[in-house]
């Protein structure tokens, strides 16, 4: 539609307008462009300044922070660290979060691939109904089952363990959906037939042919799974009670109510420790992550 009207208009207007286009850009090029760059840089500064304040304040003593604002680093980094560590062990939170997120990512990647393959390449009774049901459940917000989930964990005796945070990752409808779409377009059934004729078992075909082909899509989804698990707050908050088992986000909440909150420098340092590794990882992965977001939204 649009293309057509555009072409129609172009026929009638091109003669008059052409001269305008050719003469316009040359002189005007620099000033608006500079303005736009200035604006973009200002936005980049706004994006980054809270982190900068955090990093600077992490090195300043409580008194220095209370007395005024500066972007010049102080010299209280070691004291702040000692104060913070005397109340909470932030590295333990780090380790717990890492442990959970890595397992969640592995489970979600493997079992979603398995399920996606099952949905894509076999014909069995109830397949379509199950698939549609899964898609419908995908729309259900996570909080809907929160209370039932808590009760279930209580009855199974798995509260205050990592089981409720890790095992459910084996059923990730969105990842299954994404991987199914992916493998349907990338893996031709004739390849599977050939492997069967060569005598490979079904699971062997899956492990040696399907998984390698799905790997780019699994990697894409893994980034989101990992970030989602790493940032998850409400689930560990509900399920975990023992401070030594807390994940990083829950530990951050704990930090707020603890004695550390009295010392702003230590507080900033604690937050900085939770943030900086992600920023460093992002430095190396930013291109990949950005591409994944684009792919995820368009494939959807």
């Amino acid at each position, binding site marked *: 539609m649009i293309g057509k009207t555009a072409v129609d208009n172009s026929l009638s207007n091109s003669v008059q307008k052409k001269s305008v286009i050719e003469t316009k850009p040359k002189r005007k090029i620099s000033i608006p462009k500079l303005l736009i760059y200035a604006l973009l840089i200002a936005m980049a500064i706004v994006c*980054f300044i809270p982190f900068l304040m955090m990093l600077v304040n992490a090195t300043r003593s409580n008194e220095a922070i209370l007395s005024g604002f500066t972007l010049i680093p102080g010299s209280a980094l070691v004291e702040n660290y000692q104060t913070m560590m005397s109340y909470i062990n932030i590295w333990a939170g780090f380790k717990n979060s890492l442990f959970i997120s890595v397992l969640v990512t592995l489970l979600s990647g493997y079992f979603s691939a398995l399920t996606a393959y099952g*949905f894509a390449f076999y014909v069995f009774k109830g397949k379509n109904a199950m698939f549609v049901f899964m898609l419908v459940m995908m729309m259900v917000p996570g909080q809907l089952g929160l209370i039932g989930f808590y009760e279930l964990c209580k009855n199974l005796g798995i509260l205050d363990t990592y089981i409720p945070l890790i095992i459910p990752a084996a059923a990730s*409808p969105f990842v299954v959906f994404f991987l199914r779409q992916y493998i349907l377009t990338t893996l031709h059934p004739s390849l599977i037939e050939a492997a069967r004729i060569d005598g490979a078992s079904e699971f062997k075909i899956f492990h040696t042919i399907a998984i390698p082909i799905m790997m780019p899509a699994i990697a894409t989804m893994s980034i989101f799974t990992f970030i989602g698990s790493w940032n998850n*707050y409400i689930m560990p908050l509900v399920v975990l009670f023992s401070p030594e088992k807390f994940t990083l986000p829950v530990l951050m909440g704990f930090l707020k109510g603890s004695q550390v909150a009295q010392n702003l420098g230590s507080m900033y340092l604690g937050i900085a420790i939770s943030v900086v590794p992600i920023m460093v990882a992002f430095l190396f992965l930013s291109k990949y992550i950005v591409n994944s977001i684009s792919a995820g939204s*368009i494939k959807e």
Partner: protein
Amino acid sequence: MKNINRYGYFFIAPFWLVFLVFSIYPVALTFYYSFTNYTGSGEAQLVGLANYKRLLTDTYFVEAFFNTWKIWGVNFALQMGLALILAMIFSDMRIKLKGIAFFRSIFYLPNLITISSVALLFGILLDWQHGSLNMMLMKLGIISDPINWLNEPTSAQLSVSLILTWMWFGHSFIVVMAGVSGISKDYYEAALIDGANRWQTFSKITIPLLKPILLYIMITSLIGGLQLFDLPMLLTDGIGSPDGSLNTMVLYLYNQAFKYNNYGYAAAVAYGLFVITLIFSAFIFKGMYGKERKQPRQV
């Protein structure tokens, strides 16, 4: 061949086992609890629709509903506005900006940071007397007296909206750009030849062709926004102060269940939230696609 197809069940069995136990069952159990007066211990007694009746007249829930909408709405308008302006600038064939990868990364960075860390960070940065933000603004001469960001209902809600915008506009920008890069250059060239100005190009070509992407952003953002929890929980004392202005629906659900042990009622709150999400998602879908029953365009 028939035998081989039986393997399909083996492949999907682990998924369904976990899915039934940890997703379907909790959702069903919550539904059952929403008709009871369960308090977390002892027997659950059926009370019919009492919880739902209470929900409809509960001023705290209604307030939480409007708070959530206000916070999400302001954030969404700002976030989309910024994302679209940025997309317009970066896709303009006449300007041809460089450094898109750099800006994209910087704009996206806040989105990656754990929300609880973000909440804590802004909690102390926005502090009335000792927060670095007030100190910086005063030093720069932008304000003369410290602003009590988090202690006054309107500014507290606005602060949360702005933090959310800060966190999400980069993400929306990336998604919009992905959509824009899928639009054929021919349209823009034709528009350029026609002498269409930037706004015409943007509103008559980019926006209509981006409809599916905009719908995607809007629905995912709405679902996420209605579940707003971490920020209000950690920015305040956990019950949505000041004046209940940061009391969101999920925060209310959490407090009803795990603070006051009203499991039955909290379950009804969860279903209320679900129905609200469904209604508004359908609403957005209708609003954007309305009468033209076209297939969403694959970009």
